[in-house]
């Protein structure tokens, strides 16, 4: 760990649009902060809300979901399902005390390497200014408190 806080962002990119945008950003050598780690899924519709929560619980400071633009989904409508879940998930995160800006959904098509660069740069900066989420240590402390108060975690 360096002295300066480096946000860790987990990204779920769909195979057909946003993953390709990341490839095309690479081919065009578009530079962006190295804070995002990409997990490839076939469709943004595969992103189970549990993945997002699990990422936060394992120490992610932000989660980015990337899919095809509305109407462009390789599987016709998977991205609409993503959008629905995303709205509910944001509400749920708020309930958990997680700032909803830590989760972001973006439509980035295969040709939009520029947009990918912009989104990642923006999100990294935003989360950097928000500071670390530190969910794993918070969970640990809470578990300890629960343990002390005699409730089984």
């Amino acid at each position, binding site marked *: *760990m360096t002295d300066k806080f*480096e946000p*860790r962002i*987990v990204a779920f990119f769909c195979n*057909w*649009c946003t*993953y*390709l945008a*990341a*490839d095309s*950003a*690479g*081919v065009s*050598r*578009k*530079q*962006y*902060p*190295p804070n995002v*780690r*990409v*997990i*490839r*899924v*076939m*469709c943004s*519709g*595969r*992103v*189970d*809300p*549990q*993945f997002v929560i*699990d*990422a936060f619980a*394992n*120490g*992610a400071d932000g989660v980015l979901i990337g899919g095809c633009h509305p*109407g*462009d989904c*390789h*599987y*016709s*409508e*998977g991205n609409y*399902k993503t959008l629905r*879940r995303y709205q509910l998930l944001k509400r749920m995160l708020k309930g958990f005390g997680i700032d909803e800006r830590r989760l972001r959904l973006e439509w980035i*098509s*295969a*040709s*939009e390497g*520029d947009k990918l660069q912009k989104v990642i740069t923006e999100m990294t900066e935003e989360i950097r200014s928000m500071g670390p989420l530190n969910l*794993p240590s918070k969970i640990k402390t809470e578990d300890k408190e629960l343990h002390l108060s005699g409730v089984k975690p």
Partner: protein
Amino acid sequence: MSEGIRIGVYVCHCGTNIAGTVDVHEVARYAGGLPNVVVSKEYKYMCSDPGQAMIREDIKKERLNRVIVASCSPLLHEETFRKCCADAGLNPFYFQMVSLREHVSWVHSKEKEKATEKAKNLVHAAVMRVVHHESLSKKRIPINPNVLIVGGGIAGIHAALTIANAGKKVYLIEREPTIGGHMAKFDKTFPTLDCAACILTPKMTAAGKHPNIMLWTYSEVVKVDGYVGNYKVTVKRKPRYVNEDKCIGCLACIEGCVFKEAKFPNRFDEGLGKRKPVYIPFPQAVPMKVLIDPETCLKLKTGKCKMGCAEACGQNAIDFDQKEEYKEIEVGTIILATGFKGFDPTILPFYGYGRYPNVYTSLEVERLLNAAGPTGGEVVLRDGRKPSRVAIIHCIGSRDESTNRWCSRVCCMYSLKLAHLIKEHTDAEIYEYYIDMRTPGKGFEEFYNRVAEEGVTFIRGKVADIYPESLDGSSNRLVVVAENTLIGRVVKIPVDMVVLSIGLVPQPDAKDVRRMFNISCSEEGWFLERHPKLAPVNTFTDGIFLAGCCQGPKDIPDTVAQAGAAAAETLALIDKGEIELEANFAYVKDDCSGCKSCINLCPYSAISFDEAKGKAVINEALCKGCGTCVASCPSGSIGQHLFEDVQIFKEIKGILANGEGVVR
């Protein structure tokens, strides 16, 4: 769980592409210390023969049962390494790829330490994920040997003939009433100056007559369903109001039309020629069948007409009751050859197109020069004069921040050709205004020199303004103003004719077509190829290929070469007889509670409900592997091969490991 798991990790330098930014040695060292990893190596080019041989050897010698290659994008080499594993006797789905080039070294080239850190995280994720991989096999489905080709320009025609000659059935769909596309409009082609008609019309006729080609002109694809090997395509056939089977192309109906004079602009002649409501686009049209324009035909517009056409037709082919028809066809592969559109110069008002009658587009001049064109090959101005001084302006709508940034590739050469032809036809003085003279191609530079020697004057500069020489009518010349950047002086030259060398732009409905065929477009609107160098005619959708200018501006030789390549790719797919589909389909586990919430989510209706068992069932053949149902199952009872929950959870853990192998 991980008992007996033996992972091999291979970190690729990709020359200096990865190794120049990422400390590959450190990544390999780090991977070597992770659980279950028994081999961790680095090598200059992992995809090369020695690289692959090393992996194969290790699989055997070290009894590896999982392989990870950390190199470029999986879209480039996943198949290569899967095959490498299979060759060594390992099920290819025990392989996992990590993208260190596109996702790390190329995009973080100035932050070496952090890039290395990221690379370690990604490799760590793969190491954790691959433990949970399973042995899988690919689905095999038969492929329909029929091919659909959309667009009947030179690209579509060439591809259609190639495939039809190989004995396969082709549906060639063209939305205009004739095939031939832009090439049919040209007079001569650069740099050889052979006449476009002489090389194109025999091919058009061959396509029209070929027993294996089903040619549907005046038709459009309106719906595409299915997937590689099994596409269901709906084609709209617009009414010609002429029975194509009966019409013999004698053109007696045109003679018989109540309009004695042709008075409506003919689109094929760029509006310069006139036609009647019943017409053929041009004398060499294929198919040689007339059609009636409902916008101008009295019978179709008002219901009142003597119907001289029907009277004149000896075949009884005129049919005013014809309606548009929708036909469904089944094909296995599709080639898109939908072409381009000429840039509309009215967007740039200072060139005066549409305002001054003697400003022409290059396509209009092609028609004027064409012996089969509206003037029979005479270059005469709209006011009837023969031009004695002509300005040709390059890069209209190209290489310009305010319109299109790309170079249209063909304009320099066709401008030189037009200069030569106009000079030949009229002996006029010619001035060419160019930004840079781009003549890369076989015989192109030689052609440029030849035209220069013929006495064409070249002015290096962009035209800033065009205005009439006099307002009182004493001169009908236009003054062309430009800075000659080679002498650093503004020059004003009065000319009789201005030719705008318009660039190439994507078809206005390219975005709709792209969506219908489920492929991607580049930012500019050209259809996106799978890989610019290694898969230039493939798209990201299997079974759909590209040919010609719909993929980007190119000249005729390149278009034909690309059409041939697309045909070869198509035939390669068909001749295999069956296709292998990715093994990533979803399946229902035993603990399904039968809530049915997944059933409506599937866009392919692949999920049904087994009433007897009270569980959902997924039809493997229909499932495309998006995983939407998997993510939505409330009890986690749907799995997806290659993207199992446990695999992704492990990937998340690995990605967030803090770089020294500690998983929080």
